[in-house]
């Protein structure tokens, strides 16, 4: 059966289409600016997946349109097709090959996950407080100072964000860092990121938290360590007592990030 199909030509068409789609798709900067050590790793994974996906998509499209072109019934032709019920080798192939592809993807993703969540010894801890509809930040290493609506972090040093919420679930997302984590009431969650680009970014709430959800934003400033110290020392306010108490009541679901060998 297979012998009657131009397999080599179809495969060549699939590869050509894959190359064409991949060339366009990979060259587009889908995720926007990269501003953390995690960002290039996530984007590389995405690009590898784009190439693999282009292949799968091209294969489906080539198979479909070849069949439509070749096996379209002539007008008035009321006869049936050939009574082919299956082909065991083909069926095994399209079970095993996708299995291998997705297991490769899973392994690769796991490796990337371990890398981007690898805790560093000199990490700086920053508390993230969220409340409908505002963000504030505590700096325990800098005398428990507190900033509202504006997060400053030093460049090239791992930050471990300890996430807290006072009311409903919020979610902490800085797209340029490729990092997101929910702030869950009653739980302290952790997100790890090492910013490696100076600049000002936006922190976006991505978990629906009420009518003010769309406007729950904060400014993120990544600066040189000296500038950061100057800024943080200039802060007047300290983390409010009520926030400190709520942290103590929290349970911490994942004190050890996955990369530390826990998984």
């Amino acid at each position, binding site marked *: 059966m297979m012998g009657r199909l131009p397999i080599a030509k179809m495969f060549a068409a699939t590869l050509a289409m894959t190359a064409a789609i991949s060339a366009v798709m990979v060259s587009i900067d889908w995720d926007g600016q990269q501003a953390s050590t995690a960002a290039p790793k996530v984007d590389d994974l995405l690009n590898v997946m784009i190439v693999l996906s282009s292949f799968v998509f091209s294969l489906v499209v080539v198979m479909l349109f070849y069949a439509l072109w070749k096996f379209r019934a002539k007008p008035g032709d009321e006869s049936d097709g050939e009574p082919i019920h299956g082909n065991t080798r083909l069926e095994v192939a399209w079970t095993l090959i996708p299995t291998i592809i997705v297991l490769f993807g899973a392994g690769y993703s796991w490796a990337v996950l371990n890398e981007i969540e690898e805790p560093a010894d000199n990490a700086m801890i920053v508390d993230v407080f969220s409340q409908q509809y505002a963000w504030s930040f505590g700096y325990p290493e800098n005398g428990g100072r507190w900033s509202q609506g504006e997060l400053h972090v030093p460049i090239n040093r791992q930050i471990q964000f300890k996430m807290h919420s006072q009311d409903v679930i919020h979610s902490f997302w800085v797209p340029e860092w490729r990092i997101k984590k*929910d702030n869950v009431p009653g739980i302290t969650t952790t997100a790890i990121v090492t910013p490696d680009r100076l600049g000002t970014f936006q922190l976006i709430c*991505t978990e629906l938290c009420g009518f003010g959800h769309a406007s729950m934003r904060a400014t993120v400033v990544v600066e040189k360590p000296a500038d950061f110290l100057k800024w943080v020392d200039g802060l007047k306010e300290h983390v409010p007592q009520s926030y400190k108490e709520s942290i103590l009541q929290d349970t911490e679901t994942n004190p050890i990030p996955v990369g530390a060998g826990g998984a």
Partner: protein
Amino acid sequence: MVAAIKQPGWIRGALGALLGAAFGFALVVALRKASGLPAFQSEQTGYPQVVVPLVTGPLGFLLGFGCFDYWLRWAAGMPTIPEDHSQHGAKSWRDYFRFNTDHKVIGIQYICTTFFFFFVGGLMAMLIRAELARPGTQIVDAATFNSLFSTHAVLMIFVFVIPVFAGIANYVLPLMIGAPDMAFPRLNALSFWMLPLAGLLFIGSFLAPGGAFDAGWTGYAPLSTGAPLGQSFFNLGVQFAGASSIATALNFLVTIITMRAPGMTFWRMPLLVWANLSTSLLVVAATPFIAGAQFMVLFDRALHTNFFQFAGGGDVVSYQHIFWFYSHPAVYIMMLPGFGIISEVISTHARKPIFGYRLMALALIGIVVLSYSVWAHHMFVAGMFSWLRVPMMITTLLIAVPTGIKIFSWLGTLYFGKIHTYSTAMLFALAFIVTFTIGGISGVMLGMVPIDIHVSDTYFIVAHIHFVLFGGSVFTIFAGIYHWFPKMTGRMYDERLGRIHFWGTVIGTWGTFIPMHWIGMDGMPRRVADYASQFGDWNLLISCCAFFLGACQLVFLYNMVVSWRFGPKAEANPWRAKSIEWLVSSPPPIFNFDEIPRVVGGPYEFGVPGARHAIMAGEGAEVEAPEPATAVST
């Protein structure tokens, strides 16, 4: 008047609803008085004097309407209505508005009701896109916007996609297996009548003080536990939709297992039957979890329990575990029946046996099993235990394998066939293969934890869910409706209008949902009424495509309504298909079969000389000794 009140029907139903609601209201007020509490509780979330009537009112309607008449009379020892089949068949359009136990009538009731909600939900989608056409506020404020997208999703999921498949299967499945009706016709009718109640509760929440529920269709605690009264309408509407769904699934299971025509072994069942068997297995085991989750939220709200109240020692994340333990299998509840439809349509119009029939059936079962082990991929950033993410990622990616088997087998079915594309059903089936592949690909990407961390809760998710639910499920629904329209109505639809609807829908779907992938990855979160101005142009394009997509559905509506009334009469088997429903007239006789069909071969024996799937008992004895069902693989 007295006679009208005694007769089951709308008057008695309305009376029952009123009495039921009044009873619930009085019960709450009396109990509160007796406990020394103020009669009314106007605390934002509680409102027991509203919540209890929301349960008793609909139950009163069902009682009054006649859904329980037979069982109650039987239980009370009263003479039951004799089996004169007065509740069977439909002679005029009025019969579709009555309690009816005929699976064909119920099927059409299901389809029309669910499409009503489809258009209401679609109208909400148009409002959502109008608001999002430009940055800033256009037509609704942020709170109304939250209500709109929540209600849109809930209507589409709970009272359109899930039950419309139950409707199509209700009509087609008993015919397909050669059964005179479903196993439990009265339960079947009850299942249907719970459905509009659920839909009305969802829409009715707009009348509640504080507006319709606005915590998304996911209703995450503690946003939902603290939300205004409208949230309780959601909690209760899900109970009615869920009970309807579970009862129907039980009905399908018993029907499929016990009522197949003689000779129809499991390996001779059409794949639509396999698909509904798999779906029903998912529904009966998974749906109780969402019912439970919503009851727990309701209790937290009305009875001040602490399931999800962190201040009272509850656990916020456990809501998501329970919710997704249903709602991930629900994705397959919304997809597997569609897989069945596509198999029927493609095999018939390619004039070819399904490629790898047994593997197709096993892939369905594989999806059922795997789908129970992937729920936490919705929670990669939710703060659950970190270690759970990797195993859930692996199972999530593996579920792409049986899905891939289905895609490749449909493609394989086309090869060496005689493909006819005159039917709109076939066009939708072919387009489904491509659009669903895109949805599957983005699903695999979402399954990968590092990518998911970045795009979770962004427009990438919106793009993905609409590619699998609209480009996937809804395309299969259209294929199914067009395919069985002649059988259901006895009329042919207009293929020219069908093609306009098809091309408009395909272009509209791609134009609306493809750009959403990009703006999501680029930083636009979902569920926002306002967004950064950098996404303005893309959103304008998306909104224009969405309006176009919406307008194209009116072509479908017009085609269906006018063809049903004025279309040319349909033959018994306009598509020259093989399965049993095409052996009887269009529409089928009131009891489906005047004689019991006998199944003598596989369901897709196109091109096999002399092969038949089924014969009517009276037909000649020359096919007495049928050939083996499955031919040898080549």
